[in-house]
């Protein structure tokens, strides 16, 4: 049996975590969810190595950009591919994405989402 690729979803909205869990699991991924950047970091530092991280930007306490910067600062995590998805379209247009594989605007249709994950995920 082939190993299913793992995707980590980081978003502070419980419903988004649940719906993405269902959608991505149904599409054949192993899904790891984290309701904040801090919890995602904990999991990664504990050894989780997703093939790709799907990251929300607007989160309390640690923003998506701050989380990304933290990943880049840690050698073991710096190379993980990160796809940003946000409902704040102005922020996506305003800020040049630092070391981001792709940017998706919420809401995202399944075909685009899955194609983007397939394109950038690690094997």
């Amino acid at each position, binding site marked *: 049996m082939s190993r299913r690729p793992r995707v980590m979803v980081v978003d*502070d*909205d*419980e*419903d*988004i975590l*649940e*719906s*993405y869990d*269902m*959608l991505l699991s*149904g*599409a054949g991924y192993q899904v790891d969810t984290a309701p904040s950047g801090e919890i995602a970091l904990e999991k990664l530092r504990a050894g989780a190595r997703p093939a790709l991280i799907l990251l929300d*930007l*607007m*989160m*309390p*306490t640690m*923003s998506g950009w701050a989380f990304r910067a933290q990943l880049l600062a840690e050698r073991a995590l710096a190379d993980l591919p990160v796809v940003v*998805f946000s*409902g*704040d*379209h*102005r*922020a996506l247009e305003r800020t040049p994405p630092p070391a981001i594989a792709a940017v998706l605007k*919420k*809401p*995202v*249709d*399944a075909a685009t989402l899955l194609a983007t994950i397939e394109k950038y995920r690690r094997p």
Partner: protein
Amino acid sequence: MVAALLRLSSLPREDWDGGLQEVLKIDSQVLSVGRVGYWSFRPDPPHIFCELNYSAASGTYERGDLLFERDSARYFDEVRKLQVVDARDARRDPRTRGLSSYLEDRGIGAMLDTPVCYNGTPVGILCQEHVGPPRNWTSGDQEFALAVAQTLAAMLEARERARAAIAERHASFLSQGAMVLTGALTGSEVAKLAARLALPTLGEMAFIAVCEGGVVIEHATAYLSDGAQALAHELAMRFPRNLSSHHLLSTAIRKRESIVVPARSPEALATIIRDETRADVMAALRARSAMAIPFLCREPLQGGLLVLRSDRPYDQNDLRLAECYARQVGGFLENACLYQRAQEAISVRDEFLALASHELRTPLTSLHAAADAIVQEASKENISPEAMRRMGALMVRQVDRLDRLSQQILDASRLGVGRLQLRPAKMDLAALVREVARDFEARAQRAGSTLDVHAEGPVLGEWDARRLEQVVCNLIDNAVKFGAGRPIDITVRHRDAGAVLTVRDRGIGIASTPHEGVFRRFQRDVSARSYGGLGLGLYIVWVIVEAHGGGVQVESRPNEGTTFTIELPPSVPAVGSLERGVS
């Protein structure tokens, strides 16, 4: 007499006041009359006004006497027809009899009066009044009087020309000011430009202060000589930040009255201005005269202009011009401030729209993903009913969220223009709170918080149940969102026949002061980019509670939590259906 005529022709024409004194005195000496005066015609009702009178006996000047046409119509008639009135016996002469009480009071026996014309019409009268018995006027007397009247006419003409030239200069100064100031869009730009434009017409240094609610919000300085730069800067730096001081300009702005200070020396001016911290600067500027003019804007905007000069004292002409200029600047300031406020309102609205679209996209994203997941599941051979049920439930939840959001946005726009109508009915607040808390339980649990409702028995009153449900929802939603996963306590109890509801969290608290700011529409204590929400929830709470005749209080400490207390009267006060206007 020839020598006198020569002296008359050599008088300086520009100085009307000084010239007039000289003319009247020469006239009195040459014709040896006790009194010589110049009177001007004035309307409403028609009369003549004594501009200046010279009395030979005392060698003094006086002014201000009035004579009305209705008391001596014949006399006025003669002068208007450009006739010289040569009355040998003034008290009996039919032309001057009407003036008899004036004549008797001053012991005047004879009069020789000559009209003074400007542009062909009589504008005044040169009056030679002989104190004593009647006197014959020779043709030589009359010729000399005519020559003096002509001298006065020439002086009048020169005065009018000078006035027209000043008016022209003033008009061009004001119109140039208006042209330049039109381009200024902020209060600070108006202040800077207005200070610069005031020079050199209004002085050698100008200082402008703009205040709101008594506090200086903008100031600007301008100066003519480069050497004044440091001093001007010093003056601006030392200007008080509020209007309660004795500073000349502060006083003018506070009292809404212009102040003109003419002084003999820079030291004297510094003393008059009285503000000791500034005396040295004033002295160093060598300024000898100052004017402080308020702008007379609409409250809460205030402001004023201070100008200084060293060459001569300010006079009434300067004051008039400065006041016109200040009115103009005040108008531009008001416009600039209104424009700035409109800009701010637009940016608040833009921020809200961005936030609202973000908030709407969050449930849409889940809805989209769940719908995609259902399509995906439906195409499989072994459809899992459990998965379908979970996805369906999630979709319903998203639709509810969207509905609540659109309700909030609608409420906010309605409440902003005062259209909240209450439908009060008998209800139990404790039961309502328990019900709402139950609905929030799952969410609170996910956030790590517990929701404990403390209520003993029913808490009854006549309120709008649907609106109070919104209040309780918004308060609990707020507590869960900012509660940092710690316990949340909700208490409902009676007080003075009414009710008190408190919602207490132990979360991040409110950093900004005063805490009451959180009740303002679109106001958020936290960054919009990190916490979701429209910044409307607490505003809606406040409006609904106020409409019920109740009150909202907030207590908070950063990182210790926040407690909201709602007090409600037993029923909505009898103002019918309350119409609220909240901005």
